[in-house]
Protein backbone atom coordinates (compact mmCIF):
# COMPACT_ATOMS: atom_id res chain seq x y z
CA UNK A 1 0.00 0.00 0.00
CA UNK A 2 2.82 2.38 0.91
CA UNK A 3 4.59 1.45 -2.33
CA UNK A 4 1.56 2.33 -4.40
CA UNK A 5 1.12 5.61 -2.55
CA UNK A 6 4.78 6.51 -2.99
CA UNK A 7 4.60 5.63 -6.67
CA UNK A 8 1.62 7.94 -7.07
CA UNK A 9 3.36 10.75 -5.20
CA UNK A 10 6.52 10.28 -7.28
CA UNK A 11 4.53 10.33 -10.51
CA UNK A 12 2.68 13.52 -9.58
CA UNK A 13 5.89 15.21 -8.46
CA UNK A 14 7.57 14.27 -11.72
CA UNK A 15 4.63 15.62 -13.71
CA UNK A 16 4.81 18.88 -11.80
CA UNK A 17 8.58 19.06 -12.29
CA UNK A 18 8.25 18.58 -16.04
CA UNK A 19 5.75 21.39 -16.54
CA UNK A 20 7.42 24.15 -14.53
CA UNK A 21 5.40 26.91 -16.20
CA UNK A 22 2.17 25.44 -14.87
CA UNK A 23 3.64 24.67 -11.46
CA UNK A 24 5.02 28.17 -10.96
CA UNK A 25 1.83 29.84 -12.16
CA UNK A 26 0.44 30.22 -8.64
CA UNK A 27 3.51 31.79 -7.12
CA UNK A 28 4.01 34.11 -10.11
CA UNK A 29 0.41 35.27 -9.74
CA UNK A 30 1.12 35.79 -6.03
CA UNK A 31 3.97 38.19 -6.85
CA UNK A 32 2.39 40.00 -9.79
CA UNK A 33 -0.95 40.58 -8.08
CA UNK A 34 0.83 41.90 -4.99
CA UNK A 35 2.55 44.52 -7.12
CA UNK A 36 -0.88 45.94 -7.93
CA UNK A 37 -1.63 46.92 -4.34
CA UNK A 38 1.03 49.60 -3.77
CA UNK A 39 -0.04 51.08 -7.11
CA UNK A 40 -3.71 50.89 -6.21
CA UNK A 41 -3.80 52.10 -2.61
CA UNK A 42 -0.72 54.33 -2.75
CA UNK A 43 2.82 53.36 -1.82
CA UNK A 44 2.81 54.91 1.66
CA UNK A 45 4.85 52.49 3.84
CA UNK A 46 2.46 52.88 6.79
CA UNK A 47 -0.62 51.88 4.82
CA UNK A 48 1.20 48.97 3.21
CA UNK A 49 2.44 47.69 6.58
CA UNK A 50 -1.10 47.89 8.01
CA UNK A 51 -2.85 46.02 5.20
CA UNK A 52 0.14 43.83 4.24
CA UNK A 53 -0.71 40.66 6.16
CA UNK A 54 -4.32 40.66 4.98
CA UNK A 55 -3.43 41.35 1.36
CA UNK A 56 -0.81 38.61 1.28
CA UNK A 57 -3.25 36.12 2.80
CA UNK A 58 -6.02 36.99 0.34
CA UNK A 59 -3.58 36.59 -2.54
CA UNK A 60 -2.46 33.23 -1.13
CA UNK A 61 -6.10 32.10 -1.17
CA UNK A 62 -6.52 33.21 -4.77
CA UNK A 63 -3.17 31.72 -5.84
CA UNK A 64 -4.16 28.31 -4.45
CA UNK A 65 -7.59 28.66 -6.05
CA UNK A 66 -5.93 29.25 -9.44
CA UNK A 67 -3.95 26.04 -9.20
CA UNK A 68 -6.81 23.80 -8.08
CA UNK A 69 -7.84 22.70 -11.56
CA UNK A 70 -4.57 20.84 -12.08
CA UNK A 71 -5.31 18.57 -9.10
CA UNK A 72 -7.67 16.23 -10.95
CA UNK A 73 -8.41 17.80 -14.33
CA UNK A 74 -5.60 16.17 -16.32
CA UNK A 75 -6.14 12.80 -14.66
CA UNK A 76 -9.84 13.05 -15.43
CA UNK A 77 -9.20 13.90 -19.09
CA UNK A 78 -6.60 11.22 -19.85
CA UNK A 79 -8.40 8.50 -17.90
CA UNK A 80 -5.79 7.88 -15.22
CA UNK A 81 -8.37 8.87 -12.63
CA UNK A 82 -10.44 5.81 -13.58
CA UNK A 83 -7.38 3.64 -13.05
CA UNK A 84 -6.86 5.25 -9.66
CA UNK A 85 -10.44 4.41 -8.75
CA UNK A 86 -9.92 0.77 -9.74
CA UNK A 87 -6.59 0.45 -7.94
CA UNK A 88 -6.44 -1.52 -4.66
CA UNK A 89 -5.02 1.59 -2.96
CA UNK A 90 -7.87 3.19 -0.94
CA UNK A 91 -9.04 6.24 -2.85
CA UNK A 92 -9.06 8.38 0.29
CA UNK A 93 -5.36 7.69 0.78
CA UNK A 94 -4.56 8.31 -2.88
CA UNK A 95 -6.40 11.63 -2.62
CA UNK A 96 -4.35 12.57 0.43
CA UNK A 97 -1.19 11.79 -1.55
CA UNK A 98 -2.32 13.90 -4.48
CA UNK A 99 -3.17 16.77 -2.15
CA UNK A 100 0.25 16.49 -0.51
CA UNK A 101 1.93 16.85 -3.90
CA UNK A 102 -0.36 19.71 -4.80
CA UNK A 103 0.61 21.48 -1.59
CA UNK A 104 4.32 20.85 -2.21
CA UNK A 105 3.99 22.45 -5.64
CA UNK A 106 1.70 25.35 -4.67
CA UNK A 107 1.32 26.14 -0.96
CA UNK A 108 4.94 25.45 -0.08
CA UNK A 109 6.13 27.76 -2.86
CA UNK A 110 3.93 30.51 -1.42
CA UNK A 111 5.45 29.90 2.03
CA UNK A 112 8.94 30.21 0.57
CA UNK A 113 8.05 33.34 -1.39
CA UNK A 114 6.18 35.04 1.45
CA UNK A 115 9.19 36.75 3.16
CA UNK A 116 9.88 38.55 -0.11
CA UNK A 117 6.28 39.70 -0.21
CA UNK A 118 6.48 40.78 3.43
CA UNK A 119 9.51 42.87 2.45
CA UNK A 120 7.65 44.44 -0.48
CA UNK A 121 4.72 45.30 1.78
CA UNK A 122 7.04 46.86 4.34
CA UNK A 123 5.90 44.51 7.14
CA UNK A 124 7.76 44.77 10.48
CA UNK A 125 10.62 42.28 11.16
CA UNK A 126 8.48 39.94 13.29
CA UNK A 127 6.30 39.22 10.26
CA UNK A 128 9.23 37.61 8.48
CA UNK A 129 8.81 34.47 10.55
CA UNK A 130 5.15 34.84 11.54
CA UNK A 131 3.81 35.10 8.00
CA UNK A 132 5.60 32.01 6.60
CA UNK A 133 4.67 30.05 9.72
CA UNK A 134 1.00 31.02 9.43
CA UNK A 135 1.03 30.14 5.72
CA UNK A 136 2.76 26.86 6.50
CA UNK A 137 -0.08 25.95 8.86
CA UNK A 138 -2.85 27.38 6.69
CA UNK A 139 -2.06 26.50 3.07
CA UNK A 140 -2.47 22.69 3.45
CA UNK A 141 -6.06 23.37 4.56
CA UNK A 142 -6.52 25.52 1.45
CA UNK A 143 -5.40 22.65 -0.78
CA UNK A 144 -7.62 20.10 1.00
CA UNK A 145 -10.76 22.26 1.10
CA UNK A 146 -10.18 23.41 -2.45
CA UNK A 147 -9.78 19.83 -3.62
CA UNK A 148 -13.37 19.14 -2.54
CA UNK A 149 -14.59 21.90 -4.84
CA UNK A 150 -12.29 20.83 -7.69
CA UNK A 151 -13.47 17.21 -7.42
CA UNK A 152 -17.15 18.18 -7.24
CA UNK A 153 -16.86 20.27 -10.39
CA UNK A 154 -14.98 17.77 -12.56
CA UNK A 155 -16.64 17.76 -15.95
CA UNK A 156 -19.07 20.58 -15.22
CA UNK A 157 -19.99 23.32 -17.64
CA UNK A 158 -18.65 26.39 -15.83
CA UNK A 159 -15.90 24.89 -13.70
CA UNK A 160 -13.55 27.79 -13.02
CA UNK A 161 -16.05 30.41 -11.85
CA UNK A 162 -18.03 27.91 -9.84
CA UNK A 163 -14.93 26.64 -8.05
CA UNK A 164 -14.44 30.16 -6.70
CA UNK A 165 -18.07 30.37 -5.59
CA UNK A 166 -17.93 27.01 -3.79
CA UNK A 167 -14.46 27.21 -2.32
CA UNK A 168 -13.92 30.83 -1.27
CA UNK A 169 -16.67 30.88 1.39
CA UNK A 170 -15.12 27.77 2.94
CA UNK A 171 -11.70 29.48 2.91
CA UNK A 172 -12.90 32.35 5.10
CA UNK A 173 -12.03 30.76 8.50
CA UNK A 174 -8.45 30.07 7.35
CA UNK A 175 -8.15 33.67 6.18
CA UNK A 176 -9.50 35.09 9.45
CA UNK A 177 -7.18 33.10 11.69
CA UNK A 178 -4.23 33.42 9.31
CA UNK A 179 -4.40 37.19 9.41
CA UNK A 180 -5.11 37.15 13.16
CA UNK A 181 -1.96 35.09 13.72
CA UNK A 182 0.30 37.48 11.79
CA UNK A 183 -1.31 40.60 13.24
CA UNK A 184 -1.13 39.09 16.72
CA UNK A 185 2.65 38.70 16.40
CA UNK A 186 3.24 42.03 14.68
CA UNK A 187 1.11 44.08 17.05
CA UNK A 188 2.27 42.10 20.09
CA UNK A 189 -1.24 40.94 21.04
CA UNK A 190 -0.25 37.31 21.46
CA UNK A 191 -0.85 34.91 18.61
CA UNK A 192 -0.89 31.50 20.25
CA UNK A 193 -4.63 30.93 19.85
CA UNK A 194 -4.90 31.74 16.11
CA UNK A 195 -1.83 29.60 15.38
CA UNK A 196 -3.36 26.69 17.29
CA UNK A 197 -6.68 27.13 15.52
CA UNK A 198 -4.91 27.17 12.13
CA UNK A 199 -3.28 23.88 13.10
CA UNK A 200 -6.61 22.49 14.26
CA UNK A 201 -8.30 23.42 10.98
CA UNK A 202 -5.49 21.70 9.10
CA UNK A 203 -5.80 18.50 11.14
CA UNK A 204 -9.58 18.45 10.79
CA UNK A 205 -9.30 19.07 7.04
CA UNK A 206 -6.75 16.27 6.72
CA UNK A 207 -9.01 13.86 8.57
CA UNK A 208 -12.33 14.77 6.91
CA UNK A 209 -11.70 16.28 3.47
CA UNK A 210 -10.33 13.07 1.83
CA UNK A 211 -13.70 11.36 2.39
CA UNK A 212 -15.60 14.13 0.66
CA UNK A 213 -13.02 14.37 -2.15
CA UNK A 214 -13.08 10.61 -2.72
CA UNK A 215 -16.89 10.57 -2.78
CA UNK A 216 -16.89 13.40 -5.32
CA UNK A 217 -14.31 11.62 -7.51
CA UNK A 218 -16.30 8.38 -7.49
CA UNK A 219 -19.31 10.41 -8.54
CA UNK A 220 -17.35 12.10 -11.35
CA UNK A 221 -16.40 8.79 -12.95
CA UNK A 222 -19.78 7.15 -12.68
Amino acid sequence: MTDALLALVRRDLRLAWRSPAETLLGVVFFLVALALFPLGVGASPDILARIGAGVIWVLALLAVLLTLDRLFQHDHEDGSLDLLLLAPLPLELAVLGKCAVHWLTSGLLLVVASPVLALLMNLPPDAFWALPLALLLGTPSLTLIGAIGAALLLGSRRGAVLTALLVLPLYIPVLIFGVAAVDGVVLGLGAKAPFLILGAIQLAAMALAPWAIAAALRLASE
Partner: protein
Amino acid sequence: MHALANPLRFQKLTDAILPWVAWPTAVLAPIAFYWALVIAPADYQQGEAYRIIFVHVPAAWMASFAYLAMAAASFVALVWRHPVAEVSARAIAPIGAVFTAIALFTGALWGKPMWGTWWVWDARLTSVLILFFLYLGYMALHDAFEDPARGARAASILALVGAVNLPIIRFSVDWWSTLHQPATILRADGPAMDPSMLYPLLLMILVAKLYMLTVMILRIRLQLTERKIANLRLAAEGRAEA
Protein backbone atom coordinates in the same frame (compact mmCIF):
# COMPACT_ATOMS: atom_id res chain seq x y z
CA MET B 1 -38.70 6.40 5.73
CA HIS B 2 -38.37 4.04 2.80
CA ALA B 3 -42.12 4.17 2.43
CA LEU B 4 -41.66 7.85 1.57
CA ALA B 5 -39.32 7.00 -1.29
CA ASN B 6 -42.35 6.32 -3.45
CA PRO B 7 -43.39 9.72 -4.86
CA LEU B 8 -47.01 8.62 -5.04
CA ARG B 9 -47.11 7.74 -1.34
CA PHE B 10 -45.33 11.02 -0.58
CA GLN B 11 -48.03 12.83 -2.52
CA LYS B 12 -50.76 11.12 -0.49
CA LEU B 13 -49.04 11.87 2.80
CA THR B 14 -48.55 15.52 1.96
CA ASP B 15 -52.16 15.76 0.79
CA ALA B 16 -53.04 14.93 4.38
CA ILE B 17 -50.47 17.24 5.98
CA LEU B 18 -50.82 20.26 3.74
CA PRO B 19 -54.11 21.68 5.11
CA TRP B 20 -52.74 21.33 8.66
CA VAL B 21 -49.82 23.62 7.91
CA ALA B 22 -51.28 25.89 5.22
CA TRP B 23 -54.42 26.97 7.10
CA PRO B 24 -52.70 27.73 10.40
CA THR B 25 -50.15 29.81 8.47
CA ALA B 26 -52.92 31.82 6.84
CA VAL B 27 -54.83 32.31 10.11
CA LEU B 28 -51.91 32.84 12.51
CA ALA B 29 -49.78 35.12 10.34
CA PRO B 30 -52.06 38.20 10.59
CA ILE B 31 -52.52 37.61 14.34
CA ALA B 32 -48.78 37.27 14.90
CA PHE B 33 -47.96 40.38 12.86
CA TYR B 34 -50.64 42.46 14.62
CA TRP B 35 -49.49 41.26 18.03
CA ALA B 36 -45.82 41.86 17.28
CA LEU B 37 -46.09 45.14 15.44
CA VAL B 38 -48.98 46.83 17.27
CA ILE B 39 -49.88 45.25 20.63
CA ALA B 40 -46.43 44.40 22.00
CA PRO B 41 -45.04 47.31 24.03
CA ALA B 42 -42.22 49.51 22.73
CA ASP B 43 -38.79 48.88 24.17
CA TYR B 44 -37.71 51.41 26.81
CA GLN B 45 -34.27 51.67 25.27
CA GLN B 46 -34.71 50.98 21.58
CA GLY B 47 -38.20 52.41 21.09
CA GLU B 48 -40.20 51.10 18.16
CA ALA B 49 -37.19 50.05 16.09
CA TYR B 50 -36.76 46.89 18.15
CA ARG B 51 -39.79 45.42 16.37
CA ILE B 52 -37.48 44.45 13.55
CA ILE B 53 -36.47 41.46 15.66
CA PHE B 54 -39.96 39.99 15.20
CA VAL B 55 -38.98 39.40 11.59
CA HIS B 56 -35.24 39.08 12.02
CA VAL B 57 -35.15 36.30 14.63
CA PRO B 58 -37.65 33.94 12.92
CA ALA B 59 -35.92 34.47 9.56
CA ALA B 60 -32.50 33.75 11.05
CA TRP B 61 -33.76 30.61 12.80
CA MET B 62 -35.41 29.35 9.63
CA ALA B 63 -32.22 30.12 7.69
CA SER B 64 -30.19 27.64 9.70
CA PHE B 65 -33.10 25.24 10.15
CA ALA B 66 -33.57 25.07 6.38
CA TYR B 67 -29.87 24.31 5.97
CA LEU B 68 -30.12 21.56 8.57
CA ALA B 69 -33.09 20.09 6.71
CA MET B 70 -31.24 20.41 3.40
CA ALA B 71 -28.12 18.71 4.77
CA ALA B 72 -30.20 15.92 6.33
CA ALA B 73 -32.08 15.36 3.07
CA SER B 74 -28.77 15.37 1.18
CA PHE B 75 -27.37 12.77 3.55
CA VAL B 76 -30.38 10.52 3.03
CA ALA B 77 -30.15 11.07 -0.73
CA LEU B 78 -26.47 10.14 -0.79
CA VAL B 79 -26.65 7.12 1.46
CA TRP B 80 -29.92 5.51 0.37
CA ARG B 81 -30.28 7.11 -3.07
CA HIS B 82 -33.67 8.24 -1.90
CA PRO B 83 -35.30 10.08 -4.85
CA VAL B 84 -37.72 12.20 -2.83
CA ALA B 85 -34.94 13.26 -0.43
CA GLU B 86 -32.88 14.46 -3.39
CA VAL B 87 -35.76 16.52 -4.71
CA SER B 88 -36.48 17.83 -1.20
CA ALA B 89 -32.94 19.13 -0.69
CA ARG B 90 -33.09 21.05 -3.96
CA ALA B 91 -36.54 22.38 -3.10
CA ILE B 92 -35.45 23.65 0.32
CA ALA B 93 -32.37 25.53 -0.94
CA PRO B 94 -34.09 28.63 -2.37
CA ILE B 95 -36.36 28.89 0.70
CA GLY B 96 -33.33 28.85 2.97
CA ALA B 97 -31.50 31.35 0.77
CA VAL B 98 -34.43 33.78 0.92
CA PHE B 99 -34.76 33.45 4.71
CA THR B 100 -31.00 34.06 5.02
CA ALA B 101 -31.29 37.13 2.82
CA ILE B 102 -34.19 38.42 4.93
CA ALA B 103 -32.19 37.84 8.12
CA LEU B 104 -29.18 39.70 6.71
CA PHE B 105 -31.32 42.54 5.36
CA THR B 106 -33.38 43.09 8.52
CA GLY B 107 -30.20 42.79 10.56
CA ALA B 108 -28.69 45.61 8.54
CA LEU B 109 -31.84 47.72 8.98
CA TRP B 110 -31.67 47.16 12.73
CA GLY B 111 -27.92 47.71 12.89
CA LYS B 112 -28.05 51.18 11.38
CA PRO B 113 -30.03 52.86 14.22
CA MET B 114 -28.69 50.58 17.03
CA TRP B 115 -25.02 50.07 16.21
CA GLY B 116 -24.68 53.07 13.91
CA THR B 117 -23.60 50.92 10.98
CA TRP B 118 -25.29 48.71 8.40
CA TRP B 119 -22.73 45.98 8.64
CA VAL B 120 -19.90 44.83 10.88
CA TRP B 121 -17.59 41.90 10.22
CA ASP B 122 -18.28 40.11 13.46
CA ALA B 123 -18.42 36.34 13.75
CA ARG B 124 -22.21 35.94 13.66
CA LEU B 125 -22.72 38.19 10.66
CA THR B 126 -19.81 36.69 8.76
CA SER B 127 -20.91 33.11 9.37
CA VAL B 128 -24.47 33.88 8.25
CA LEU B 129 -23.07 35.52 5.13
CA ILE B 130 -21.12 32.31 4.49
CA LEU B 131 -24.40 30.42 4.92
CA PHE B 132 -25.92 32.58 2.20
CA PHE B 133 -22.99 31.86 -0.13
CA LEU B 134 -23.34 28.14 0.63
CA TYR B 135 -26.97 28.22 -0.49
CA LEU B 136 -25.98 30.00 -3.69
CA GLY B 137 -23.11 27.57 -4.29
CA TYR B 138 -25.42 24.61 -3.69
CA MET B 139 -27.93 25.81 -6.25
CA ALA B 140 -25.26 26.73 -8.79
CA LEU B 141 -23.53 23.37 -8.41
CA HIS B 142 -26.84 21.54 -8.66
CA ASP B 143 -27.50 23.05 -12.08
CA ALA B 144 -23.92 22.98 -13.41
CA PHE B 145 -23.98 19.58 -15.12
CA GLU B 146 -25.48 18.22 -18.29
CA ASP B 147 -26.67 15.24 -16.31
CA PRO B 148 -29.08 16.40 -13.58
CA ALA B 149 -28.45 13.30 -11.44
CA ARG B 150 -24.74 14.11 -11.32
CA GLY B 151 -25.50 17.70 -10.25
CA ALA B 152 -27.87 16.54 -7.55
CA ARG B 153 -25.32 14.19 -6.01
CA ALA B 154 -22.45 16.66 -6.24
CA ALA B 155 -24.59 19.32 -4.57
CA SER B 156 -25.52 16.85 -1.83
CA ILE B 157 -21.84 16.37 -1.00
CA LEU B 158 -21.38 20.14 -0.87
CA ALA B 159 -24.39 20.50 1.43
CA LEU B 160 -22.82 18.04 3.87
CA VAL B 161 -19.43 19.76 3.73
CA GLY B 162 -21.08 23.11 4.37
CA ALA B 163 -22.84 21.74 7.45
CA VAL B 164 -19.68 22.48 9.49
CA ASN B 165 -20.84 26.10 9.30
CA LEU B 166 -24.00 25.43 11.34
CA PRO B 167 -22.40 24.98 14.77
CA ILE B 168 -20.17 27.96 13.99
CA ILE B 169 -23.27 30.13 13.44
CA ARG B 170 -24.97 28.80 16.55
CA PHE B 171 -22.03 29.30 18.90
CA SER B 172 -20.29 32.25 17.20
CA VAL B 173 -21.85 34.65 19.72
CA ASP B 174 -20.48 32.59 22.62
CA TRP B 175 -17.01 31.76 21.28
CA TRP B 176 -16.09 35.29 20.21
CA SER B 177 -17.08 38.48 21.94
CA THR B 178 -19.14 39.85 19.11
CA LEU B 179 -21.23 42.94 18.58
CA HIS B 180 -24.19 40.67 17.88
CA GLN B 181 -25.88 39.86 21.18
CA PRO B 182 -25.66 36.33 22.60
CA ALA B 183 -28.60 33.91 22.65
CA THR B 184 -31.65 35.39 24.35
CA ILE B 185 -34.29 32.68 24.04
CA LEU B 186 -32.48 29.33 24.06
CA ARG B 187 -30.31 29.56 27.18
CA ALA B 188 -29.81 27.53 30.32
CA ASP B 189 -31.49 29.96 32.73
CA GLY B 190 -34.58 30.55 30.59
CA PRO B 191 -35.36 33.31 28.12
CA ALA B 192 -34.01 36.75 29.03
CA MET B 193 -37.00 38.58 27.64
CA ASP B 194 -40.22 39.99 28.99
CA PRO B 195 -43.25 37.74 28.28
CA SER B 196 -45.07 40.65 26.60
CA MET B 197 -42.40 40.53 23.88
CA LEU B 198 -41.43 36.86 24.12
CA TYR B 199 -44.86 35.42 23.28
CA PRO B 200 -45.41 37.38 20.07
CA LEU B 201 -41.86 36.47 19.05
CA LEU B 202 -42.50 32.78 19.68
CA LEU B 203 -45.73 33.02 17.69
CA MET B 204 -43.85 34.68 14.83
CA ILE B 205 -41.33 31.84 14.90
CA LEU B 206 -44.16 29.30 14.80
CA VAL B 207 -45.72 31.11 11.83
CA ALA B 208 -42.37 31.22 10.03
CA LYS B 209 -41.95 27.50 10.59
CA LEU B 210 -45.46 26.65 9.37
CA TYR B 211 -45.00 28.90 6.37
CA MET B 212 -41.72 27.21 5.57
CA LEU B 213 -43.28 23.74 5.81
CA THR B 214 -46.11 24.81 3.52
CA VAL B 215 -43.82 26.24 0.87
CA MET B 216 -41.46 23.30 1.23
CA ILE B 217 -44.22 20.75 0.58
CA LEU B 218 -45.54 22.76 -2.36
CA ARG B 219 -42.09 23.11 -3.90
CA ILE B 220 -41.24 19.43 -3.47
CA ARG B 221 -44.50 18.46 -5.12
CA LEU B 222 -43.84 20.93 -7.91
CA GLN B 223 -40.43 19.40 -8.57
CA LEU B 224 -41.82 15.87 -8.47
CA THR B 225 -44.46 16.88 -10.99
CA GLU B 226 -41.84 18.52 -13.20
CA ARG B 227 -39.84 15.30 -13.14
CA LYS B 228 -42.91 13.28 -14.01
CA ILE B 229 -43.68 15.55 -16.96
CA ALA B 230 -40.10 15.28 -18.21
CA ASN B 231 -40.27 11.48 -17.96
CA LEU B 232 -43.63 11.30 -19.72
CA ARG B 233 -42.31 13.53 -22.48
CA LEU B 234 -39.24 11.31 -22.90
CA ALA B 235 -41.47 8.23 -23.00
CA ALA B 236 -43.74 9.84 -25.59
CA GLU B 237 -40.74 10.73 -27.75
CA GLY B 238 -39.46 7.18 -27.39
CA ARG B 239 -42.78 5.81 -28.61
CA ALA B 240 -42.86 8.25 -31.52
CA GLU B 241 -39.43 7.09 -32.66
CA ALA B 242 -40.30 3.41 -32.34
